[in-house]
Each structure stands twice: as structure tokens, then as C-alpha cells.
């Protein structure tokens, strides 16, 4: 089922964890404080929480994008990110 998913820009993210507080349904933090994101689409009220988390991220590292979001699936002709 399509919908919107939360993604994080790993280079921009500073690991302060605001997102895990605002969207515990989709984000947990690893032992170093960086988000582990559940890429299942958000629906209904979850979508509002997700938007709040996106807006609250101090590094503008979170975004809500149409699923699926991936270089390989977005442009069918393109090479996948996988290597080796």
C-alpha cells in the first residue's frame, strides 16, 4: 500500500533524538542516539505526528516522502545503490 514514509538525511542528522520523542511509533534510537526508522507508511493521525517530528528536527534532516523512496525504485532504469 502506498503512502508517506519518514526518511532521514544521515549526513545532516546530529543524533539529538527529538524525532524519537515526537514519533515513537516509527523512530527508536540506537545506542549512539541516532534514529532507526521504521519505513512503513504513516496514515491518519500518525501522519500528523510525523509532520510535527519533521518540523521539529533541528537539523532539517527528517522528511516525509511518498513511498517507496529509493534511488532504485524511484527511477526504474537506474542502478540500485547496492554494491558487492
Amino acid at each position, binding site marked *: 500500500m502506498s503512502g508517506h514514509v519518514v526518511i532521514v*538525511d*544521515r*549526513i*545532516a*542528522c*546530529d*543524533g539529538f533524538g527529538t524525532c524519537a520523542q515526537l514519533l515513537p511509533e516509527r523512530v527508536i534510537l*540506537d*545506542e*549512539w*542516539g*541516532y534514529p*532507526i526508522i521504521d519505513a512503513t507508511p504513516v496514515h491518519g493521525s500518525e501522519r500528523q505526528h510525523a509532520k510535527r517530528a519533521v518540523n521539529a528536527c533541528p537539523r532539517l534532516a527528517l522528511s516525509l516522502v511518498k513511498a517507496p*523512496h*529509493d*534511488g532504485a525504485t*524511484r*527511477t526504474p*532504469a*537506474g*542502478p*540500485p*545503490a*547496492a*554494491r*558487492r
Partner: protein
Amino acid sequence: MTTTSTPAPPHAPHASAPRLLGEPVGVDLARHVAAFGPLPAQHGVKRGHAGPLVAEVERSGLAGRGGGWFPTGRKMQAVVAAAHSARKDPVVVVNAMEGEPAASKDSVLVHRNPHLVLDGAVLAAQAVGASVAYVVAHRGGRSVGTLERAVEQRAARGGDPVELRVLAAPARYVASEESALANFVGEGIGLPVTVPPRVFESGVRRRPTFLSNAETMAHIALVARRGAAWFREVGDPAQPGTMLVSVSGAVANPGVIEVPTGTTMRQILGLAGGTTGPVSAAVTGGYGGSWVSASAAIDLPWTPDGLRPAGGTPGAGVLAVLPSESCGLVETARVVQWMAGQSAGQCGPCRFGLTAVSQDFAALAAARLKGTGLAGLEKRLGIIPGRGACRHPDGAVRFAASALEVFADEVKRHLSGHCSAGRRTYVLPVPAGTVTLPVDRPGEEWR
């Protein structure tokens, strides 16, 4: 652990005629033309459309030799399509960096037949509609000078239909990752950037970029001359052609050999003069690849699908053979420490995660890790992949995880405080002076 020994057979296995390494002609362009023929003219190339060579490369079944084995023709198509829809001229980048410490195939190829690589770059550029091709190698390595002299020779003999530029990039492992390399060519900073967009749609100065490995480019040069059917005459039907393999470790004649894809490890070891004694395991693909047990992999064909049952990959064509008296965990700990030090330090899970994995592995190798520590290591290995901007952490984790599997018996021994290794010298190369932890703010060393 089972051990396997392959002495050189009385009659070395018959190698198919080499294609890329057959006639080493060096930078001398006249000799290159005499050996391989002139640069074939490309007809019917219209701006914004794929030239006929793109379809020919697609038919050839050529897959990228930089490690990913992605179909090269499809990648060229994607670049042409992206250039068309963005109304931008694409760019070509040749990845001659050879970041894998146990690999030497690209520098050997550049040394022996630099014009084959350059021909491929020029032909690929024409076919996708690019007017410039950048050829990038490690700063301080010998490839840069060779490529520059080869380009001078071409310029002196009338030049090429597209501009060729040789660049020297920082000799860091992740600087040769594709987004980092495109970033270096465009902005002078050899650091990976967040994807998507991928380089095929937005690479050098936001232009669609056809970026491929040096060996891949050399194969393109031969497909253009001899055609797709010729290319498919040797090798595995799914990934045809020949491939370069950098063989090192416990073999009589370490070095680079060219074999048809689908050749087995037993045959490759035979061509390298046989093993120097019993061997237990081997690194396949590179340090972003994985360990295989020698007994499980010895008769598997070298293709991505063929090596999978043993957990291996042809990757960047690395085969490093471990003698039975060496400890695979000690070797892995050193490599993982180097890989952690190669992190660009931009992404938390890579920067902190690889450092933690490296520390766990050092403790395991020294037989200081306990069962709970191993559980912690396994958990870390499970959560890091896919969480960096580039695939560097995925490769490091894959390598570390494969060691836990292949050396499972040795792991048990180490957990109870013992190591069965009878040898204290290292087999796997780790570049000197580069074992550092990630720096705080990436700076000048990336320019």
C-alpha cells in the same frame, strides 16, 4: 576448520586468451593502435539520444567491474534518459581509484594498457552525449602519471573527439565511492553526499554522470571494436566476458590475472601457481566483500550468483587467500579497524557504529571478549547496514559478519580465551599509517 590445499597442477589450467592484459603496450599510442586497432568512429550519435554503442554494450551483458556488477548498458541508458529529461549534457567519470587495499587490477591495467581505459572513456562519452570524460586516480599513486602521459600522447596525435582530463583525488577509501568521486570532480571535495539523487541522474555539478570503473571502461573499448557477440564468447552466460582478479596471500605467484567470469577459485589458484600450503579461507571481493571458507567456495564459479552459496562475491575482483595457520579473527580485526578509520565521520551510525564494531572485534581477536560481548557485537552488526549516506558501513559490516560465520569454530575458541593461530605475521594488507579514527570535522585531507 577444514583446510584445503591446491598445489599447482602438473599442467596449469588453460586460461582463455587474455583480452585486457594480452598485449601490454604502455603509454605508446602507436603500439596501442597496432595492437588493438584505431578508435572506432561512432556514427548516428544525436544529442540527447543514446548512441548505438549503448545498445551494443547492453547486448554484450557487460556488468560493472567496480564491485557492484550492475549492467553497464542499463546504467548508460539511465544516464541518457536523465540527461534528456533534465536537458543537460552528461559527464563521464572513470573510477581508476582502486580504493580496495587488496586490489591492484586497475593500476596494473592502467600501467599495461592505459589507452584501452581512455578509449573506453572517450567512446562511452560519445555514446551518452558527454563532451568531457574525467579519469580519476589516487593522489600519489603511479596511475596518475601514466594516465597523464597517455593523454599527452593522444593530444600530440590529433587528440580525441571529447576532452579527457586526468585528476588526482585524495587517497581515502570512501573518496572512491561514486557520490564522493562525483563530488570531488565537481566541487573538489572527495566526501560522499546524501543520495538520492544518484550520480546517474545528478552527479558532477548536478549533471547526469556515467561513472564506471577503469576495467569496465576497457571492456567498453573492446565491445565497441569487436561487438557484443564477441564479448559473450567467453565467460558465464549471465555475466559474460573476462574479469581481472587480484590474487594475494598464500599463493605461489600473487598478482593480477585475467580469467573468464565463472572460473572457479581452484582454477584461479592454479593460475596463480597454486597455494603455498594448506589454506582455510579467503577474502572475496575486497574489504567491502566477504570471507568464504575455502572448502565451501573452492569449486564455485566466480560470478555474483555463483559465489553466493558460500556467502562470497566477486566484487572488485579480490581473492586473498588465508593460510590455515593464520587466525581469521585477528586478520579481520585489523581490517575492520582500518575500515572504521576510513569512515568519513559524517553519519553517526557509520562513525560511532564502526568504531564500536572495531573495538568489539579487537577484543574478540585478543580472546578478551565474553559471550555477552559477542551478543552485543552481533546486535551492532544488525543495526548498522543501510544507515549511512553511502554503502561504506554496509561493506564493513558485511566483512565483519562473514568472519563470524566462516570462523565460527575459532570464535568459540576465542570466547574461552584461546587462539589456535600458529602464525603471527599478517596476510591481509592494510595501508600503512592510515589506521585512524574518524576526524571531527572533515577538512583539508578530503580536497
